C-alpha cells in the first residue's frame, strides 16, 4: 500500500510539470491497476483474515478478490485459490451494512449455495431481515437472493415472502417479485403453479409500467397460452406500451398477436375496385399473407385491433431491433400488405441494416426476415432496392443474403440495373460464394423474358470462355449448369451458343475441368433430339482424346454415343442396319475403348448398353436413353431453398384466426372492459416521486406543470419529507416523536384498488409536507387497523394537498 501511495504522490509531482490531463490518465491507471495488483497478491490466509475482519474496507477487499477469481475463470485451475473453501467466511458477511458487500455476497451465494446447503441456510435469516429494509433496492436484492438460492426447503419461505412483497410500495420490489416467481416456476412448477398464477394476476393489474414489464416476461415464459388473463388489460397495455421497457414491448407484442388472433374478430376485406356500392364483395382476411384477390380494397378492422396497430406504428422509431421485428410480424400476421406498407415499418427494419453497428448476426437475421417478407410481397422493399447492393466491406454471409433478396425483388423495371451489378460481382469479386450466388441470381433474371434469357446465355458462354483458366471448379460448374439449364429450356433458339460450346469442347484443349466437360457432353446428348446434325461430329472429335478425359467425361462420351445410336435407330426405322451405320461403328469403337477402362462403372455401363443394342432391343434403348429430362430449375422460389433459419420461419408462422368473423356474442359482451388497476404508490412513506410516470400516461406529458409545481414548494427536496421509517417497529416523525407501528403485513392486508380513470384523469398534485402535516399522517396510521377505505384516504390526500399548495 505504501508503495502505491508513493506512486500516486510521484504522479502528483509530475502532474505539475506535464499537462493536467496526462496526469489524470497516469494516475487513474496507477489507481486501478495497482489495486488489482495488490488484490492478486492476497494469499489464502490473508483472504480469510480479510473476510473475517471487523473493518468494512477489508471485508470489501476480500469480497472483491473472491469475485475476481470467479470472474476470471481462475477458480477452475488448481494453482489459484479455491473459492468454495471460503464459503463460511463469505456467508458470515451477509449481514454487512454496505450494500455493495451485500450484493457481492449474494452473487457468491447464488453460485455456490447448492454446494453446501446447510451453511447456506444460515444466511437465510439475514436475508429475510433485509426483506424489510427501508431501501427498496435492498428489499429487491433480498428477494433476488432468496430466489437464487436453490435449496428445496426454502421454497415455502420464498413463496410466503413473495406473497407479502407483491404489495410492496416500490415498483422495483414488485418487479423483482415477478422474476422470483419465474424462477420458482422453473424450479418447482408442480407445487406452486396455482400460487404463481394468482400472483401473476395481481402483477398484471399493477399500475406501474415497470412492474407490468416484468409481469409480461413472467407470463410469456410460464403462462403464454392463458391469453384470457389479458382481457381486462388489453386496452390499457396498448395505451402504455410506449412506457414499458423495450424488451418487454417485444414480448408483449408477441403475446398480443396471439391474443388478437384468438379473441378479436377477423378483419374483413371489402372490394373497392368496382364503383357501385351494392356489388362490392366482402371476404374475411385470407389466411395467407398478400393473397387478397381484389386490386383495390378497404379493410374493416375491429376497434381494439385498430388501437393495437396504431400504437405499434408509433413504435417504429424504437432503437431496439426486437421491437421493430415483432411489430413487423404483427402487421404481417394481422393485416394486409397495403397496411403493412403504410405503417412504414419496413423502412424501420431496413434502418437496422444500414446502421453503423457491426453486429453481423443481427443483420443476418434482419436480412432473412426481409427475404421472407419479400418473397410473399416483393413491393414492400422494392423502393429500397439499392440498399441490397453489395459493398466491398460486407461479409460473405451478408452479401449472399443480400443477393437473395435482390433476386426476390427482381422485376421488369429493375432487371437491367441489377443485371449490370451482378455481372460486375461475377467478374470482380474474389469470394467464391458471392460469385456463385450472383450466378444463381443471374439465372433468376433470365426467368423474366426470352430476350434476357438469350442475353444471359450468350454472356455466360463468352465470359466462361474468356476466363476458364482462372475460374475455380465450383464456379465453372455453376457456369455450365446455367448454360445447360438455359439451353435445355429452349434449344432451338440457342443454336449459335450450341455451336460455340462444341468449339469450346473440341478445339484447343483449354477446358480441362472434368465435370464441366461432362456437363457439356451431356448437353449434346440432350440436344441430339432436336438438332441431331452437329452431334456426331462432336462425338467424332472427342474420341481421339478419350484416354485423356476424366472419369465423368468418359462416362458421358459413352452415353452420348449410345444416345446418338438410339436416335439413329429411331430415325432410320426399318432401314437401319448395324453394319452400314457410321454411328453404330463409332459406338462400337467407344464401347471397345470402355472395355479397357480402369473405372469399373464405365466398363459396366459399356457392357450394359452394348448388350441392349446387340440384342436389338431398340425400344428399351429408346426408353432408357431418350427419356425427357425434367427441368432442373424451379420457376418458383420457395422459402425452403433460401436457407432462411427455421426459427425465423417458425416465428412468422401464420397463426390461425380463432374468433369467427361475425360473432354477435362477443360483440354483445365487451370482454375487454378495462379491469381495475392496483395502485400501491400510496403506501410510500415519502412523497411519491413517480408523478412523472403517471403524467406520462396522458400521452403529451404534463411535464411542465408538475415540474414547476415541485419548484414552487419551499422545501429543498421533497423526498426526505420529515418522515423516516426504520426497520424496527418504531416510527419517528420529523419532529422527533415516536409512534408504534403495525407490522407491514397487517398494514398491507387490504389491497386498495382505484379505477384507472381516477388515477390518470385527475391532475396529480404534490403534497408539501411540513412539520404540521405529520398530524394528518399520524391519524392515517392510527386508523389503519380498521380497513382503510381508499375513497376516503385519497380524498384526504387531495385535501391535504390543496391545503398546502
Amino acid at each position, binding site marked *: 500500500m505504501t508503495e502505491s501511495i508513493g506512486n500516486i504522490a510521484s504522479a502528483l509531482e509530475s502532474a505539475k510539470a506535464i499537462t493536467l490531463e496526462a496526469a489524470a490518465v497516469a494516475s487513474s491507471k496507477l489507481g486501478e491497476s495497482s489495486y488489482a495488483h495488490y488484490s492478486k497478491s492476497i494469499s489464502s490466509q490473508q483472504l480469510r483474515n480479510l473476510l473475517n475482519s471487523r473493518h468494512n474496507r477489508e471485508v470489501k477487499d476480500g469480497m472483491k478478490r473472491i469475485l475476481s477469481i470467479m*470472474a476470471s*475463470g481462475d477458480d*477452475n485451475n488448481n494453482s489459484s485459490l479455491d473459492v468454495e473453501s471460503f464459503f463460511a467466511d463469505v456467508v458470515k458477511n451477509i449481514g454487512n451494512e454496505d450494500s455493495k458487500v451485500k450484493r457481492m455476497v449474494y452473487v457468491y451465494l447464488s453460485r455456490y449455495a447448492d454446494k453446501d446447503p446447510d451453511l447456506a441456510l444460515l444466511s437465510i435469516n439475514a436475508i429475510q431481515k433485509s426483506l424489510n429494509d427501508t431501501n427498496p433496492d435492498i428489499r429487491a436484492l433480498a428477494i433476488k437472493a432468496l430466489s437464487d438460492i436453490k435449496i428445496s426447503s426454502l421454497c415455502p419461505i420464498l413463496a410466503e415472502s413473495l406473497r407479502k412483497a407483491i404489495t410492496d410500495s416500490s415498483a422495483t420490489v414488485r418487479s423483482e417479485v415477478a*422474476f422470483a416467481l419465474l424462477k420458482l416456476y422453473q424450479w418447482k412448477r408442480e407445487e406452486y403453479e396455482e400460487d404463481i398464477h394468482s400472483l401473476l394476476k395481481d402483477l398484471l393489474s399493477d399500475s406501474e409500467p415497470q412492474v407490468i414489464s416484468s409481469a409480461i416476461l413472467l407470463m410469456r415464459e410460464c403462462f403464454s397460452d392463458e391469453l384470457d388473463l389479458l382481457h381486462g388489460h388489453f386496452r390499457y397495455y396498448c395505451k402504455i406500451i410506449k412506457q414499458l421497457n423495450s424488451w418487454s414491448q417485444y414480448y408483449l407484442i408477441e403475446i398480443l398477436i396471439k391474443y388478437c388472433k384468438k379473441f378479436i374478430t377477423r378483419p374483413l376485406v371489402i372490394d373497392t375496385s368496382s364503383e357501385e356500392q351494392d356489388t362490392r364483395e366482402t371476404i374475411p382476411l385470407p389466411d395467407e399473407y398478400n393473397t387478397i384477390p381484389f386490386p383495390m380494397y378497404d379493410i374493416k378492422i375491429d376497434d381494439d385491433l385498430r388501437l393495437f396497430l396504431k400504437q405499434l406504428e408509433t413504435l417504429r*422509431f424504437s432503437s431496439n431491433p426486437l421491437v421493430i421485428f415483432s411489430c413487423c410480424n404483427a402487421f404481417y400476421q394481422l393485416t394486409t400488405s397495403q397496411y403493412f406498407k403504410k405503417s412504414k415499418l419496413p423502412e424501420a427494419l431496413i434502418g437496422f441494416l444500414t446502421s453503423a453497428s457491426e*453486429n453481423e448476426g443481427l443483420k443476418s437475421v434482419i436480412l432473412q426476415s426481409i427475404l421472407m417478407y419479400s418473397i410473399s410481397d416483393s413491393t414492400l422493399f422494392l423502393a429500397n432496392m439499392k440498399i441490397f447492393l453489395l*459493398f466491398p466491406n460486407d461479409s460473405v454471409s451478408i452479401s449472399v443474403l443480400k443477393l437473395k433478396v435482390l433476386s426476390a425483388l427482381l422485376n421488369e423495371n429493375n432487371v437491367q440495373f441489377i443485371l449490370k451489378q451482378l455481372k460486375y460481382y461475377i467478374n470482380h469479386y474474389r469470394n467464391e460464394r458471392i460469385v456463385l450466388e450472383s450466378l444463381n441470381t443471374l439465372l433468376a433474371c433470365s426467368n423474366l423474358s426470352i430476350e434476357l434469357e438469350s442475353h444471359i446465355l450468350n454472356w455466360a458462354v463468352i465470359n466462361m470462355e474468356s476466363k476458364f483458366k482462372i475460374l475455380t471448379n465450383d464456379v465453372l460448374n455453376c457456369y455450365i449448369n446455367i448454360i445447360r439449364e438455359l439451353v435445355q429450356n429452349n434449344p432451338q433458339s440457342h443454336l449459335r451458343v450450341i455451336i460455340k460450346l462444341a468449339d469450346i469442347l473440341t478445339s484447343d484443349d483449354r477446358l480441362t475441368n472434368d465435370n464441366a466437360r461432362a456437363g457439356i457432353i451431356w448437353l449434346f446428348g440432350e440436344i441430339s433430339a432436336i438438332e441431331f446434325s452437329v452431334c456426331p461430329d462432336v462425338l467424332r472429335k472427342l474420341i481421339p482424346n478419350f484416354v485423356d478425359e476424366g472419369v465423368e467425361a468418359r462416362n458421358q462420351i459413352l452415353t452420348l454415343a449410345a444416345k446418338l445410336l438410339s436416335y439413329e435407330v429411331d430415325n432410320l426405322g426399318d432401314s437401319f442396319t448395324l453394319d452400314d451405320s457410321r454411328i453404330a461403328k463409332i459406338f462400337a469403337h467407344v464401347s471397345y475403348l470402355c472395355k479397357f477402362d480402369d473405372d469399373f462403372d464405365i466398363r459396366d455401363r459399356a457392357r450394359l448398353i452394348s448388350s441392349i443394342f446387340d440384342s436389338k432391343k431398340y425400344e428399351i434403348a429408346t426408353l432408357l436413353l431418350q427419356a425427357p429430362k425434367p427441368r432442373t430449375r424451379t420457376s418458383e422460389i420457395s422459402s425452403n431453398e433460401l436457407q432462411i433459419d427455421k426459427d425465423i420461419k417458425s416465428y412468422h408462422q401464420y397463426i390461425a384466426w380463432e374468433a369467427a368473423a361475425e360473432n354477435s356474442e362477443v360483440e354483445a359482451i365487451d370482454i375487454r372492459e378495462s379491469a381495475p388497476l392496483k395502485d400501491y404508490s400510496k403506501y410510500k412513506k415519502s412523497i411519491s416521486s413517480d408523478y*412523472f410516470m403517471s403524467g406520462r400516461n396522458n400521452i*403529451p406529458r404534463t411535464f411542465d406543470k408538475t415540474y414547476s409545481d415541485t419548484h414552487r414548494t419551499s422545501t429543498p427536496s421533497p423526498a426526505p419529507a420529515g418522515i423516516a421509517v426504520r426497520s424496527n417497529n418504531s416510527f419517528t416523525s420529523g419532529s422527533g416523536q415516536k409512534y408504534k407501528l403495525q407490522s407491514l403485513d397487517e398494514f398491507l392486508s387490504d389491497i386498495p384498488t382505484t379505477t384507472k380513470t381516477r388515477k390518470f384523469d385527475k391532475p396529480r398534485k404534490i403534497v408539501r409536507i411540513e412539520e404540521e402535516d405529520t398530524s394528518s399522517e399520524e391519524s392515517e396510521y392510527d386508523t389503519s387497523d380498521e380497513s382503510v377505505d381508499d375513497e376516503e384516504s385519497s380524498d384526504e390526500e387531495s385535501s391535504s394537498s390543496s391545503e398546502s399548495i
Partner: protein
Amino acid sequence: MYIAFYICDTKNQLVFQYLCDSIAPHFSKLLTRIHSLCPEVLDVETRGNVSKDLKIYRYFSATNNLNYYALTIVSRHHDLEPHHVLESIDTLLVEYFNKTNLTTTKIMNNYDRMTILFDLLIDGGIIDGNNFYMNKLRNQIPLKNDFSNFINDAAKSLQKGQAPSKTVDNEVVPWRSKEIKTVRNEIYVDVKETLYVTLIKSNRASHRLKLLNGYINGSVSVDSSIGGVPMLEVSFGGCDFKDIIPKFHDCVEVNEFLTNDGNIIKFIPPDGKFQLMEYSMALSSFNDNLISCNFTNGLGNSNDEFEITLNINKSNKVPKINNLQVCLNFENREGQSKVKILRNTHGRFEYGKNTWIFDSELLTGTLPVLRGCVEEETKNEEDGGIDGEGRRILSKLRPELRSVIMSFQYEGQLPSGTRVSSINIRNDSTSNPQRQQLFKGVKYVTKTSNYEIRG
C-alpha cells in the same frame, strides 16, 4: 434462457466470465467443446450448437476488439434476441465506464463491478429490461471516482461519490434519476455521419463520377450534465428527417417529433453520455465538394501506367483530413503482377496492401497525385506469348487499376448538410438561475465506411 456470458480478446483468451448458474461451464471447458463441434463460431460464424440443447452466440465488438459469447438453452425463440443482447451489453459497458473503448485491463481491474453489472442485467437467466438504463446501474454500483476524476472536475464536490445508493426510488422517468446535481451544466451534441458510397466513372474518358448507390448513416450522441429535470429541445437544420425513420433513444417524445415537421426533438436526457438518435438517408446524388478522387489507366508509353489524383479543396470549416488512405484494387488475374510507384507527391505507398497512406493529419487545399505502373512478371510473358493470339489475350488481361477504396475522417461538416441549429431547455427556467448559463457544444464528424470508386 441464458446460462453464461463470456468476454474474450481477439485470440479467444478469456477476459471475463459471468455464469448465471452453478452448473454453467467454465470457458476453458466450453472452448474445447467449441473446437470439436463448431470451430467456425470462433472466427466467422456468429452462432453454433455446442450440444443438442445448447447454443453459443458470438458478437465481435470492433471498437473494443473483444469477442462476446453467450451460452443459451435452445428455445423456441429466434436468434435476434441473443445477438442484440450481446451488442447492448457491449455498448452499456462502454457507457458505464464512461470511456470511448473498453480495454481488457479495464475489465480485469473491475471484476467486481462487472460481475454485479451482469447480475443486475440478467436475472434468473432472463434479461431484466428494467435495468438497461444507465442511471439505474450507476445508482446501484456507483462508478468509482478515481483520481483522474478528481483532477478533471476539481469543482465536483467530494460527497457525491460517497453515499449515492441511499436514495430511494427517485427516478423521474426510467432513464433519469431526479436528484441530479451538477456544477458543470453542460451539454454536448456530437453528430457523426458515416458514408457508404459506390461511385462509378460514367465513361472511361470523362472525369465525372456517377453515384451508383449509397447512403449516409448518422448518429447523434449527447453528453449532458445538467441538474434537475430539464426538457431539452434540439432542432436541426439543413436536412429533413420527415421522410426517414430515425431510431430514437427511449427518452425522445415521438409525438412532438411528428408534429414539428420532423426537425425538432424534445427529450428529458439521461445523465451522461447516450445516443440520442440514429438515422440513415439514402442518397440520390452525391457530390462531395471537399474530397474528390479520380484515376486513369493506360497511360505511358506501354499503356501500363496509372495515375490517381485526389483533390482536397480548401475549406474554412474543415482544416484537416484525418487518416486518409486510398486502397488500390487491381484486376486480379493470376496475381503475377507487381505495382511500381513512379511518382508520389504526398504520403507513402505500402506495397503489400497496395495502399496509399497519408499522414494522420493532412491539411485541406492540397492536390496529391500518385503515378505508378503495373509490371508483368517476365516469366508470364515468355510462357504465354508463344503465338500471336496468346499475346493478344495476355495484353487484354493486363492488370489495371479497377477500383479504389478511400477511407478518411474529418471534423467540421457533414456530407448530408445536417446542422444543429439550436439547443434549448424548454421548461420553466426562472426557478433555476444557473440554467441560463448552460454551456452548449456541437461537433460534426464525417467518416467513411465504404467509399468505393469503380473504373
